[in-house]
């Protein structure tokens, strides 16, 4: 399933992504994986009935963030060609590249650790329903993105300095195929917040907009209640930098992977911390504790939020009452004028 997912994401990336420049270094295919995977039609129907694509666009892959990693760096269980069905990739695997600042092998294990500490880990103490398969892994939220260098809005990069001009400077000292291009991409890709607000909401909505999931885990539909707030509507109508899920649920200075339950005191949404999350850059200023208690995920539920429930009920009764009463009078009058002299009294008299 997850491999299928990873490959669809890669395939989608191939179709929709854009490239800002052509890096000259295509990863040498030492392992000869492209012997088969270069064919766009390479696919099969899985046992679950999904069509699985196995095509890899090597040019595309060369511009992705994993370009330095060999295939077997992640697909560690593949030892021979042709291979059997590959196992699901574990992102905490130590891969065959070393970190730039030390000689240690690189791995995402730190992030995996953070995720383990968050509410998204099935063993977290605040989890309501321990259904392991419902909990997200790396690939549920992440695809294999391509490097993007965006000069717009990057304030400190001079307008005239396009990527090529910057590379020219680098090439004065560095070899043409040296890794400066890789590191340039590595850094500039992270300068700007690349995930548009809608994308963040979409990512979380994969699980949190599903009523069946909410019911199983004794939660409420977080996505739909969020979309009913001004925050959600701002995102929906394309207001730039509108607050998304992670703006409130991730504590300032912490990784997005470490989202905690509102019940744990370290959480951004813990009742005593909540108002501090509202004070982000460009958000609300001078907030108080009470401000943090304004509910952002309101459901009309008599037991959970009684005040909201009764106010909404009162207005609904009032509106429907007034509406149907006036409509009734209108209809009666319109019928009446069709028969101006047809009253009972007249009949009796006449």
């Amino acid at each position, binding site marked *: 399933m997850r491999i299928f997912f990873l490959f669809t994401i890669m395939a989608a990336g191939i179709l929709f992504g854009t490239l800002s420049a052509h890096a000259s270094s295509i990863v040498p295919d030492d392992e000869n994986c492209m012997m088969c995977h270069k064919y766009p039609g390479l696919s099969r129907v899985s046992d679950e009935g999904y069509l699985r694509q196995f095509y890899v666009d090597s040019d595309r892959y060369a511009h992705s963030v994993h370009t330095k990693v060999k295939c077997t760096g992640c697909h560690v269980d593949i030892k021979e060609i042709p291979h059997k069905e590959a196992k699901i990739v574990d992102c905490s695997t130590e891969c065959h590249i070393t970190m730039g600042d030390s000689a240690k092998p690189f791995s995402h294990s730190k992030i995996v650790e953070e995720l383990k500490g968050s509410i998204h880990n099935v063993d977290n103490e605040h989890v309501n329903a321990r259904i392991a398969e419902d909990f997200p892994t790396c690939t549920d939220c992440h695809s294999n993105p391509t490097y993007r260098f965006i000069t717009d809005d990057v304030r400190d990069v001079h307008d005239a300095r396009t990527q090529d001009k910057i590379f020219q400077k680098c090439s004065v000292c560095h070899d043409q195929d040296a890794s400066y291009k890789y590191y340039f991409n590595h850094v500039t890709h992270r300068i700007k917040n690349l995930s548009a607000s809608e994308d963040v909401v979409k990512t979380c909505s994969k699980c949190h907009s599903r009523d069946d999931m909410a019911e199983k885990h004794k939660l409420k539909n977080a996505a739909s209640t969020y*979309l009913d707030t*001004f925050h*959600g*509507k*701002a995102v*929906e*109508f*394309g*207001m730039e930098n509108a607050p998304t899920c992670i703006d409130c649920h991730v504590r300032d200075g912490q990784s997005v992977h470490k989202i905690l339950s509102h019940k744990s005191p370290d959480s951004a949404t813990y009742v005593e911390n909540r108002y501090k999350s509202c004070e982000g850059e460009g958000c*609300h*200023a*001078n*907030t*108080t504790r*009470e*401000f*943090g*208690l*304004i*509910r952002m995920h*309101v459901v009309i539920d008599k037991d959970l*939020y009684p*005040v*909201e429930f009764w*106010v*909404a009920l009162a*207005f*609904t009764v*009032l*509106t429907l009452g*007034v*509406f149907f009463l*006036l*409509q009734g*009078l*209108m209809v*009666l*009058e*319109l019928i*009446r*004028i069709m*028969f*101006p*002299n*047809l*009253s*009972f*009294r*007249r009949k009796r008299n006449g």
Partner: protein
Amino acid sequence: MKGLPLVKIKNGEKHYLKLTQNQRVQHMFIMVTFILLVATGFPLKFHFYPWAKPMIEMFGGLHVTRFIHRVCGVIMVGQFFYHWYYLFKNMAINYIIPAKKTGTFSWGEFGRFVYYSPMCPRKKDAQDIAAFIKYALFISDDMPKHERFHWREKFDYWAVFWGIPVLGITGIFLWFPVWATSFLPGWAVNISYIAHSDEAMLAVSVIFIWHMYNAHVNYDKFPMSPLFLTGYMPEHLMKHEYYMEWARINRIVEKDPSRLLDLDKEKDAEMLTNQEKMELIREQIEFMKESTTGGKYNKGGSHHE
């Protein structure tokens, strides 16, 4: 003539004064701000419908609709406060000051003055409603004889009177939530949100259906009543719908004919009679004849000599 003419005669029909110029301007302010508030607010309330986003984009995005909504909200609340001033001013100049000046002020009479003022709900309205229901249910053939503003108009008026404070107060809480929560609990903003949006829905359902029906789409006014533009209502509608008011104005005009403005007569007076016209035309022909045949007007006027 004192004040606006109560009756104007135009194209052979009498038109009766129902709204003064001031009242028409007040109505115009409320109407325009209401429409803009709905146009900028409802796409947010119904954000899940496909028309919501194009509507926001038509205005130029959320930043624009938010600005329009707030400006219109402030104008509408300002109008509300102006209306209070207007009510007190009218009490003062129409009863309190003249009564005090003539030394005849009494609280009892002041109470009656307020009770019989055009928008005050009173016993007659209850009787009118009962009479209307009898009429509507085919129990009687007589329509109620209404005064200047009938119970439907009074209902609309008092609905707005209740609606603007509800929408204004909740609106300002939503506009300044940090300020609101400095003296209120957090859930106050949540219920403001519900109340603001639901009260708006109530207002829209009353105005766009009930008020539009009564004022314009009604069987005898369709497609539009000129009242909100001119302030005057043609006699056939006035007599049909506001019989008491029609009778009241007729009585005043009978006593004081200066309150009637006959535009037809004025127009006739401005027009030349046939005899006057013929005199003018003959005189001009005479003049032209004289000047071309070298008559007395042409002597000494030519450069050719």
